[in-house]
C-alpha cells in the first residue's frame, strides 16, 4: 500500500490549476547533432534544476493519477513530483527508490510516451508531464550529491536467493530481495555487470558509469555479485540449490540469442548481428580503437545498413554513424508508423543524418570473391491489412528488387531465448520456442524454488517491463521463502 506523504503546506504546489496548465513542457537540452554524431557522449544532457522545478509544477496532482497506473513498476509518481515541487530532490529520489531500484537508468531508457506519460492527463490537451526527464533529474541529483537515500534492509531471514543474470530484471529483483532481509547473490555470464544495459544500450544513450553507479548502490545494500559464471555451464541450477544452498533461484537471463534473416550470404565478412556489433562497441569499447583491443569493422567512409525498426536497430545505426560511416541507413519492412522504436530515438536518429528506407526488405547479401560484403539486394514492400498483432502486414511488391551498396550490414530484427539453462535443467518447462514457462502472477516455473521473469519468459521487451517482472518475482520469492509454500 502506498504510504501517505505529508509535506509542509508551504512546500506544496501552490500555483492555481489554471496557471499550472499554462506552463509549456520544458525541453531536454541535447548535444548538437552535428557534434554528437561523431562522438559517444550522452545525447540528453539532463534538465537544469530550475527547469526541473518548473516542469514539476506543471503536475495538476490528479486524484487518480494515470501515470502511476501506467507504470510497470508502480512508481508513486505523484508523490515524487510533489517532493520535487517542494524542492526536496533527495526525498523525491528516495521515494522513487521504494519502487524502482534503477531510476537513473529508467529515466533514460523507458518508453515513457507509452507508459507514465501516456497516462498523464495533461497529454490529452497538450504535452504530458515530462516524467522521464524528472526521474532522471532526481536520480542524477542524488548521485551527484553523494547522499544516497538507500532503503534499509529488514533483519536477516537466513534465506538466500541466487539470481541468474544482472540485467534489469535481475538487478531490480536483487534490490527488493535484499531489503526483505534475504542473502542475494547475482551471477553474470559476462565480465561486466548490467546485462543488456552494458552490452546492448550504447554509451550515448546510457553511460556505463550510470549503470555502474546503480550496481554499486545494490552492492552497498549488501547484494553479492559474481561475474564470469555461465549458469548452465559453469554451474547448474540444481547445483546452486543442492551444493551452494540457495533456497530459491530467479532466472533472469534475457532473450540473448540473435535472430538472423536466413537469407543467402549471411556469412560474408561485414554481416553482423546487432548483438555482436553492439557488444563489440559497448561492452568491449571497440570505439576507443587505440586503447581497447577488441576490434570492430572500421566503418569510416563505409556504407552501413541496419535492418530492423526497434530500439536495438536504432542503437546500431546511430553507433555506426558515430564510428564514421559514410552512409548509415535503416532498412525496415514496414513504414515509420509501425516502427517499435521509441519516438525520441527516431527523432535523434533523424537529426543525426540517419537515412530511413522504409517498406524495404533484404532478400540477399552480396559479396566479393574474397567473401567481403558489397551490397544488399532488397525488395520494396507495401502494407496490407493488419495481422493478428494489429500491425499492418508488409507484402512484397513483385519485381521491385534493387541493390543497396553496403560494406557492413547489421541485423537487428530481434532476439530469442538462450537455451543454456533450459537444456541443463530438465525439469524446467519451456515453450516450443524455448522460453521458460512461468506463471504471469507469481513468476513460478515448473520447478520448485525456481522463478523466472523478464525477456526469458516474455521474449524481447523493454528494460522497464523486465524490471517490473523482477519486482513481481521478488515479491513472490519472498512469499515462498517466508511461508515455504509452493
Amino acid at each position: 500500500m502506498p504510504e501517505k506523504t505529508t509535506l509542509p503546506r508551504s512546500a506544496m504546489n501552490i500555483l492555481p490549476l489554471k496557471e499550472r496548465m499554462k506552463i509549456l513542457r520544458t525541453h531536454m537540452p541535447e548535444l548538437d547533432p552535428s557534434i554528437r554524431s561523431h562522438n559517444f557522449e550522452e545525447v540528453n544532457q539532463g534538465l537544469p534544476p530550475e527547469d526541473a522545478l518548473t516542469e514539476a509544477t506543471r503536475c495538476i496532482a490528479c486524484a487518480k493519477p494515470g501515470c502511476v497506473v501506467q507504470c510497470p513498476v508502480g512508481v508513486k509518481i505523484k508523490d515524487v513530483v510533489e517532493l520535487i515541487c517542494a524542492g526536496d530532490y533527495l526525498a523525491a529520489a528516495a521515494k522513487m527508490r521504494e519502487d524502482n531500484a534503477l531510476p537513473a537508468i529508467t529515466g533514460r531508457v523507458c518508453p515513457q510516451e507509452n507508459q507514465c506519460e501516456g497516462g498523464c492527463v495533461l497529454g490529452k490537451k497538450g504535452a504530458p508531464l515530462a516524467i522521464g526527464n524528472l526521474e532522471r533529474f532526481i536520480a542524477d541529483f542524488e548521485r551527484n550529491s553523494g547522499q544516497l537515500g538507500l532503503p534499509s534492509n529488514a533483519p536477516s531471514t537466513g534465506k538466500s536467493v541466487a539470481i541468474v543474470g544482472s540485467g534489469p530484471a535481475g538487478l531490480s529483483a536483487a534490490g527488493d530481495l535484499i531489503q526483505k532481509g534475504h542473502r542475494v547473490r547475482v551471477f553474470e555470464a559476462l565480465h561486466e555487470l548490467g546485462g543488456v544495459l552494458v552490452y546492448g544500450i550504447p554509451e550515448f544513450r546510457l553511460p556505463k558509469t550510470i549503470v555502474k553507479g546503480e550496481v554499486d548502490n545494490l552492492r552497498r545494500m549488501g547484494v553479492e555479485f559474481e561475474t564470469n559464471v555461465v549458469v548452465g555451464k559453469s554451474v547448474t541450477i540444481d547445483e546452486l540449490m543442492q551444493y551452494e544452498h540457495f533456497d530459491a533461484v530467479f532466472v533472469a537471463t534475457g532473450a540473448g540469442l540473435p535472430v538472423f534473416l536466413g537469407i543467402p550470404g549471411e556469412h560474408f565478412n561485414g554481416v553482423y548481428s546487432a548483438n555482436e556489433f553492439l557488444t563489440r562497441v559497448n561492452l568491449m569499447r571497440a570505439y576507443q580503437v587505440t586503447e581497447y583491443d577488441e576490434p570492430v569493422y572500421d566503418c569510416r567512409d563505409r556504407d552501413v545498413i541496419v535492418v530492423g525498426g526497434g530500439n536495438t536497430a536504432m542503437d546500431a545505426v546511430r553507433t555506426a554513424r558515430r564510428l564514421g560511416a559514410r552512409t548509415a541507413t535503416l532498412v525496415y519492412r514496414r513504414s515509420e508508423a509501425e516502427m517499435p522504436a521509441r519516438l525520441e530515438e527516431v527523432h535523434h536518429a533523424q537529426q543525426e543524418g540517419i537515412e530511413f528506407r522504409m517498406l524495404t526488405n533484404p532478400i540477399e547479401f552480396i559479396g566479393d570473391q574474397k567473401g567481403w560484403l558489397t551490397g544488399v539486394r532488397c525488395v520494396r514492400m507495401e502494407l496490407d491489412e493488419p495481422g493478428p498483432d494489429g500491425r499492418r502486414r508488409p507484402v512484397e511488391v513483385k519485381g521491385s528488387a534493387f541493390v543497396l551498396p553496403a560494406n557492413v550490414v547489421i541485423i537487428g530484427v530481434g532476439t530469442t531465448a538462450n537455451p543454456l539453462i533450459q537444456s541443463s535443467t530438465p525439469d524446467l518447462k519451456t515453450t516450443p520456442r524455448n522460453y521458460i514457462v512461468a506463471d504471469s502472477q507469481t513468476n513460478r516455473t515448473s520447478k520448485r524454488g525456481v522463478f523466472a521473469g523478464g525477456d526469458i519468459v516474455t521474449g524481447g521487451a523493454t528494460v522497464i517491463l523486465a524490471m517490473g517482472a523482477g519486482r513481481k518475482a521478488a515479491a513472490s520469492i519472498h512469499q515462498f521463502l517466508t511461508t515455504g509454500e509452493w
Partner: protein
Amino acid sequence: MYRIVEARNVGLNIKQFVIEAPRIARKQRPGQFLILRLHEKGERIPLTIKSSDPEAGTVTIVVQAIGKTTSLLNCLETGDSVLDIVGPLGHPSEIQNFGTAVILAGSVGTAMALPTANALKQAGNHVVFIEGARNTEMVVFEDEVRQASNETYIMTDDGSYGEQGLVTRKLNEMIAAGRKIDFVLAVGPVPMMRAVSLVTGPLGIKTMVSLNSIMVDGTGMCGGCRVLLGKQSKFACVDGPEFDASLVNFEVLMQRNSMYRDKECQSLKYFSEHKDEELAQLRAELANKEDDVAPLQAELAPEEAPHA
C-alpha cells in the same frame, strides 16, 4: 581475478599455464574451452582447456603466441594473474568406444586433443595419435601424447624430428596399409583440418574437427562465431566447438577468421614495440585488484566440491 599458479615454456612460443579457476575446474570435460580476458582493455579470446584439477581448483591451458593478446599472455609468469576467465564453454567431445580412433593434432592443437585422446583410450578405443609440428622445437607434450595413445607418430614439416611430412601423410599411409579406422578427430590449423576431412570424407570415416572461429561472449549471444555446416548456420561456441568435418565449409571459416587481420597485425606490431610497457601496465592494473580474489576462493574451496 585468476591467479597463475604455474607457468612454463613447453615449446617455441608455446607456454602452459595452470590457473586457479575453481568453478571451471569442477565442471570441465574434454573438448571444452574457456574465454579469457587479460585486463580491462583486453579482448576476450577462446582457449581450449587441456586439463583440470577439481580438488586444487585449477585449469591448465596451453597458449601459442600468435597475436597481441596471446603474446602478452605468454609474458606472464607464475604468480601473475589474469582479469577474467569464464567457462567451461561448448559441448564436451563425444566419447564412446568407436574401435580404432585416430587423432591428428597440429602443434598447440596437441594440448587441445590430449584430454579427448585420454578419454577415448579409457573408453576402450585403440588410440592412434599423430602429432604434427613445423619443427622439433614445436613438438610438444610428447610424453603425454604417448601415454594417451596406444600408437604414436610424430611428424615434422622439415623432418627435424620424428618422421618428415604432414599429419595427413601418416593418415594416408595407414589407410593404404588397409588399417581399419572408425573415428578421426583433427585439431589444428584450418588448412590441416580441411586436408584431413578431404582424406576421410570420401571414405565415410566419422571425422570430427574442433573449430576455432572468432568469438566474443562464448555463450551464443553474438553469433560472430557462426560456421556454415552444409546450408545450416551453427554457432561454434554453443553448438560446437566440435563438428562433423564432412559438413563444415572450411572456406567460409577461413574467410571469417580473416575478418580482423589488419587490426590484428597492427596490434601485434604495436605490442612488439612496447612489450615491456604493456606488461608493466597489466601487472600494475592487476596488483590493484589483489583484494577481489580472496573471498570467492574461500567460499568455493569447501567440502562440497566436486559437483560433476
